[in-house]
């Protein structure tokens, strides 16, 4: 897969895609399938689908620290290990070594990174929700940030296109707040969850559904032709799935692009700058630095897709200075790096569930239940905050871990822990964060990384709206669990920073006006139309639903536009 491009002396392609993660993979697929010769540039090392998943089939006793984070991991991965479980050797070597790739936290930001083929698509939570109409309209209606230059209808066919290829298991519910998509069969709700669902509808008229998740419950030809098989219900997705049971760039988009024979991938290559041609007034290519050899090289293409991840895409633009773009590439608006958003998470409530003693589950569901947004929706009007949140969570039977806090030891205690324990339930909120120009990243004016690229500074934090919403996330979770009749309802509120949702977005937003936005309605940089940004950076607002399929849908739509424009010689 890793072509020795230099030896070929042929550094010119139809398109360059910067990044191989969720949106970069999709860009490569869409562009190559439309006939373009594409170079994908990945800053990290190569991971091969299946054989690169070195921990995937390890049994519990083969994981030395049994899922715990070692002090060495915690030191090397000082940011990544802030997220639950990411410091474990099950996954830790697939996440970026933060000590070698440091950033500066002017305000603390939990930046979770995976510099390797597939990027974070290898580790994502796989929850896949369409945005609703309201998500595209809210900014304009409420006077927040700027208006989206597109509406739900613009993206709708592309959602379908993405969902068919990715393979998303879900239940059609006919809800305006959470539009249905093209689904594979839904996974079941567990007995206490089904009880909860009924109670919520009965008492609050609030729908509850099973999570919509990018795991194949019933693979179709479009999946099996890429070698993907049904989910095996191991729930060890984050290690990489040797069955291709969940979607990632590694299992889906990159193999699809490779089979066109039009994709080349360059690994270990950090794109340091976009090369701007002052005469032709277009970007001509990119300059890369090999992360191991420090060698630099230039690659050229008619169009460039930036999919480096929101923060790195913005940093690359800011670092690409020319006579035309003295303030950073495409940054006439001064919005590049600003409006950094995420979803807040880490708060909610848990409870013990009485009864359902006979109900049990075979297999591990790599999924949760989902409670769509109900705040500031319909007749609900909150005065303390704008927008809303969804909950993810679920019920499970306690395992031996309950023995840690429960009293007892000895033979009976030991035997008791071998039986499925009582059920418990937990729900946690995913809250929308509003665009705010003061939440941003920028480049440090002096400090550079080991490749001589200015270091990224994070300068973002929750504001009053987020804290007020958080209070309600907790209070509403308690109210709902209590109403369902569960016992020992306990709120939780883990201190987190922005970033921990791993949904960083907004740093090169789309908009109608080049004075206030970076990208137009087809994700083209306003002032340099042959460069497209289709990762999270493009987002004008954040919604409260998980963003990946929206990034992929925007990418597919932009790629279709780009290729048509190229054919018409408009680009």
């Amino acid at each position, binding site marked *: 897969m890793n072509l020795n491009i230099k030896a070929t002396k042929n550094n010119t392609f139809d398109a360059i895609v910067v990044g191989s993660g969720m949106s970069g993979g999709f860009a490569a697929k869409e562009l190559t399938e439309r006939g373009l010769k594409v170079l994908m540039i990945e800053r990290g090392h190569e991971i091969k689908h299946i054989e690169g998943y070195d921990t995937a089939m390890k049994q*519990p*006793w083969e994981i030395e620290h049994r899922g715990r984070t070692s002090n060495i991991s915690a030191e090397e991965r000082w940011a990544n290990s802030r997220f639950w479980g990411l410091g474990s050797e099950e996954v830790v070597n697939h996440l970026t070594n933060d000590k070698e790739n440091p950033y500066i936290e002017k305000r603390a930001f939990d930046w979770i990174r995976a510099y390797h083929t597939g990027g974070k698509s290898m580790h994502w939570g796989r929850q896949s929700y369409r945005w609703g109409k309201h998500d595209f309209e809210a900014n304009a209606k409420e006077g927040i940030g700027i208006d989206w230059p597109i509406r739900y209808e613009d993206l709708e066919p592309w959602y379908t296109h993405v969902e068919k290829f990715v393979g998303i298991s879900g239940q059609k519910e006919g809800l305006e707040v959470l539009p249905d998509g093209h689904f594979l069969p839904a996974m079941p709700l567990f007995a206490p969850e089904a009880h909860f669902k009924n109670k919520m509808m009965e008492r609050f008229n609030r729908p509850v559904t099973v999570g919509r998740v990018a795991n194949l419950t019933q693979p179709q030809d479009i999946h099996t032709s890429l070698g993907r098989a049904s989910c095996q219900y191991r729930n060890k997705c984050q290690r990489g799935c040797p069955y291709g049971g969940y979607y990632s760039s590694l299992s889906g988009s990159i193999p699809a692009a490779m089979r066109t024979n039009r994709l080349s991938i360059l690994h270990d290559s950090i794109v340091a700058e976009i090369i701007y041609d002052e005469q032709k007034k277009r970007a001509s290519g990119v300059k890369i630095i090999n992360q191991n050899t420090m060698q630099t090289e230039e690659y050229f293409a008619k169009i460039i897709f930036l999919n480096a991840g929101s923060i790195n895409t913005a940093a690359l633009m800011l670092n690409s200075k020319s006579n035309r773009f003295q303030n950073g590439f495409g940054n006439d608006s001064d919005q590049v790096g600003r409006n950094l958003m995420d979803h807040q998470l880490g708060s909610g409530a848990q409870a013990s569930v009485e009864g359902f003693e006979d*109900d049990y589950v*075979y*297999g591990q569901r790599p999924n949760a239940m989902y409670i769509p947004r109900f705040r500031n929706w319909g007749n609900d009007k909150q005065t303390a905050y704008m927008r809303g949140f969804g909950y993810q969570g679920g019920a499970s039977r306690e395992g031996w871990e309950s023995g*840690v806090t429960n009293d007892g*030891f000895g*033979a009976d205690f030991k035997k008791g*822990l071998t039986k499925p324990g009582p059920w418990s339930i937990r729900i946690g909120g995913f809250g929308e964060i509003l665009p705010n120009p003061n939440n941003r990243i920028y480049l440090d004016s002096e400090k550079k990384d080991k490749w001589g690229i200015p270091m990224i500074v994070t300068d973002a934090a929750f504001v009053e709206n987020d804290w007020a919403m958080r209070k309600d996330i907790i209070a509403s979770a308690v109210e709902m669990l209590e109403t369902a009749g569960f016992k020992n309802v306990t709120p939780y509120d883990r201190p987190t920073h922005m970033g921990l949702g791993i949904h960083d977005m907004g740093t090169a937003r789309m908009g109608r006006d080049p004075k206030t936005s970076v990208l137009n309605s087809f994700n083209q940089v306003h002032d340099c139309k042959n460069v497209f940004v289709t990762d999270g950076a493009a987002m004008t607002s954040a919604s409260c639903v998980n963003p990946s399929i929206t990034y992929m849908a925007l990418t597919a739509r932009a790629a279709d536009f780009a290729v048509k424009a190229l054919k018409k010689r408009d680009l």
Partner: protein
Amino acid sequence: MNRREVIKNVALMLGGTFSAPTLMAMDNWENATNPNVSVAAFSLNSTQQKIVAEIAELIIPKTDTVGAKDVGVPAFIEMMLKDCYKAPEQQSFLEGLASMEKVKFLELNTDERRGVLKLLEQETKKMTGKITPFWRLIKELTLLGYFTSEAGLKASFEYVQIPGKLELIKLKPNQKAYAY
């Protein structure tokens, strides 16, 4: 409940098996909670290792299935404390061991040892500090080490490495939990 009452209750529960010296030693527990220990390089001496092994085995004894000692839990605990815990927890663990030495844990009979652990469990519940206390550390690491060891896991649960399907089922009488 004060310390005296706790000890009395433990003794009653166990049928009054505590010897007077043990009770006195336990009564002096407070004096034993601040030993001068260094955690620069965490390791246990042979007495400490022995205490850890005996406590782990009391938590998960050998029955008709393997026990903590059989599956290497004592060495696992030491490795985990060294690799995954920071100085305050390591210190807390060493202090707990020092208390056990003070009450001459290794010289007690099994019932007396159980009594000490019951007392320890009750005492631990009253602790509110941020640093994980000794009992919680040793109990958690014993359970983790045992239930994720190959022999401990397979003896305790129905191990399914590749379920292949997801099914809502009804629990059969005495059915063991699945482990994956």
